[in-house]
């Protein structure tokens, strides 16, 4: 059941991508992409239900594993894919790139496809390849506008991320080598096999391997200090792509960190591994908070907010326990929704005012009465205020931190949450309530661009008021799996 649903989930974007390339019709390409994305979203949820009922599925000679954690990340990716492909219809028409639109949508669906693929990989080596492929495809999405800035961003993105991720490959090879002492020279590099052997691997070797993997996938996830590509790539790509990079890709890379954390769980490296993840998390959070305060560019503001939230997710994973893992997984979903909303809003503002400069975006409410309100509420949400969903997940992660060994990190987390709140919202105050410049121009196709904002906003509000009991039990099971693998 889950396997059949997964087939549909992979076929839809593949067909959309190929058809866009063959037919070369911008209109057909955009509707096909939306259809594929909606199908994926619809299919991904019963997939989770089926995995919950019947347990994980292993297929294709053990190379594919459809488990709860992977499926959860796939749902988050599918949500962002659906929202941003709807937004792309309205946004990409403004760019005056009509003949290249089919190519854009083909790459867009291809990008989603590779991210989905990463989630079901059962083999650490093939997982690495899938993550590498996401980089190669998204590079061309980042550089799609072909201006000097976006080309520069694409170049920095591919150089920094490819070199960073090669560390993860080195770490993976070392993991395999460590395992070969226990399992013999040739074995399948599945997560379960790596975990099974990990306890008997020489501890310094395991520690170095884990660090390499953490830095490698941390680069891709945008953990500071390896985040340097992120503000450039997220700010220079077209808005729907920014949303995909931030809401979906970061989750896929965090999945790698979570999987390897589970691999070393229960070994003597485990404690060190958790401390390392917490350290990267808190460093990213603090650094992003400081950059948020002094930001002058609206899309870079959102990009640093991504660094901040990936830091929060790393903190949750590092704190561990049911609360930490549940908080992280809930945060993934909420961040995917909320950050998509934020990038959509900034895309609208950027097009209407013709600038990304915060000081030249003024009186947003006069230009966008409805979607502007959503953007403002989204900003309140992403800064971590109730009643929005991110508040609940951050609160859970905070509780996980306060009860464990990392109280110092939890305290720093609270302090800098306040910094983020003030910094982020003061930018929004000036954009909304300073009356200096004239309002932006009204552009066509706003319906396409406002619809996904509504679709993103409603769940943020609902999930912030009500954390469904079912979701909680899903998280508890995933977390016991992660820890259970660990014991």
């Amino acid at each position, binding site marked *: 059941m889950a396997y059949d649903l997964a087939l549909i989930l992979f076929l839809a974007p593949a067909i959309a991508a190929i058809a866009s390339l063959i037919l070369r019709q911008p209109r057909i390409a955009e509707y096909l992409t939306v259809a594929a994305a909606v199908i994926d979203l619809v299919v991904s949820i019963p997939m989770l239900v089926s995995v919950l009922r019947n347990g994980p599925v292993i297929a294709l000679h053990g190379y594919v594993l459809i488990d709860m954690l992977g499926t959860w990340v796939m749902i988050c990716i599918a949500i962002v894919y659906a929202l941003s492909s709807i937004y792309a219809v309205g946004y990409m028409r403004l760019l005056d790139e009509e003949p290249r639109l089919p190519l854009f949508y083909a790459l867009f669906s291809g990008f989603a496809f590779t991210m989905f693929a990463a989630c079901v990989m059962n*083999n650490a*080596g*093939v997982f690495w*390849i899938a993550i*590498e*492929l996401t980089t*190669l495809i998204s*590079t*061309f999405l980042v*550089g799609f506008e*072909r*201006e*000097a*800035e*976006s*080309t*520069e*961003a*694409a*170049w*920095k993105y*591919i*150089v920094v991320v*490819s*070199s960073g991720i*090669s*560390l993860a*490959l*080195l770490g993976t*090879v*070392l993991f*395999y*080598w460590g395992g*070969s*002492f226990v399992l*013999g*020279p*040739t*074995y*399948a*590099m599945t997560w379960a096999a790596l975990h099974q052997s990990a306890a008997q691997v*020489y501890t*310094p*070797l395991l520690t*170095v391997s884990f660090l390499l993997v953490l830095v490698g996938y941390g680069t891709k996830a945008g953990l500071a200090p390896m985040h340097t590509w992120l*503000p*450039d790539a997220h*700010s*220079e790509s077209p808005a729907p792509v920014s949303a995909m990079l931030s809401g979906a890709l970061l989750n896929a890379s965090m999945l790698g960190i979570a999987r390897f954390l589970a691999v070393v769980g229960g070994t003597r490296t485990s404690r060190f591994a958790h401390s390392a993840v917490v350290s990267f998390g808190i460093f990213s959070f603090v650094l992003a908070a400081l*950059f948020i305060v*002094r*930001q*002058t*560019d609206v899309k*870079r503001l959102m990009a640093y907010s991504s660094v901040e939230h990936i830091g929060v997710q790393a903190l949750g994973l590092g704190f561990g326990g049911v609360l930490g893992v549940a908080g992280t997984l809930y945060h993934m979903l909420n961040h995917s929704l909320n950050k998509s909303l934020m990038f959509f809003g900034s895309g609208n503002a950027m097009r209407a005012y013709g600038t990304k400069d915060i000081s030249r975006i003024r009186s947003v409410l006069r230009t966008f009465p409805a979607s502007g309100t959503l953007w403002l509420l989204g900003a309140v949400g992403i800064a971590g205020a109730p009643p929005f969903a991110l508040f609940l997940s951050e609160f859970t992660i905070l509780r996980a931190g306060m009860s464990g060994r990392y109280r110092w990190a939890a305290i720093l987390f609270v302090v800098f949450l306040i910094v983020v709140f003030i910094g982020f919202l003061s930018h929004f105050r000036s954009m909304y309530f300073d009356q200096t410049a004239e309002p932006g121009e009204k552009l066509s196709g706003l319906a396409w661009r406002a619809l996904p904002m509504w679709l993103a906003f409603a769940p943020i509000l609902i999930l912030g008021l009500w954390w469904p009991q079912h979701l909680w039990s899903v998280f508890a099971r995933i977390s016991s799996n992660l820890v259970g693998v660990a014991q």
Partner: protein
Amino acid sequence: MFLAHVNSLEASIFSSLAILSLLLAFVMLGSHWLRNYVYAFAAESWLIAALSAAVGYFGGYRELYAIAILTALFRGLVLPWLLVRIISHLNVKREMHAVLQPSSSLVVGALLVMFAFVIANYMNHETATAGHVVVLALTIMISLKLLGFLMLSVRNEAISQILGLLVLENGIFLGSQILVPGMPMLIEIVILFDLLIIVACFGMLVRYLVVHAGTTSSRELQRLVG
């Protein structure tokens, strides 16, 4: 582990091939001329292919012969050819404004190799001959990594950065031939193809850089900061 039964002849063959490829990385570090980088890289790839074949022969891993041929073909011929093509297309012959002079980057490179040795020694718990080969392989694996990062950070030309990346990958490939010759072939082949795609992507991006950013030197890519 296959190295546990290695005899001294095999050990010395593996070691010398590995050390030679490290030396070639220093040749790349010590030169200003882009073409020299490419030739050194090609030679290094041939050495790695020879190493694969040697490990395959002595260790009885038949599939490594195929890997050796593919390595020689892709990394030894196709990639260098692609790179030479990009270089002649670009009209840049040498690194103009490297942050470090070749002589000082050689010194820094030597320090990095020492650092790599310290880490490698820390990770190893084998003794006797196997221990020697393991530490050597790990050292070279990590040094190539660090030297690749050094090249990435002190060189500005787009081509040098691509080559820096390829050196990073060469390190892994070399180390994995010695340490984990039994790694499933599928993965190694996919990684080889993956490299090819990477270089193709880089090639396209370099053209964009010339057309849209007007430069291939990362010194001048300074629009996005903060």
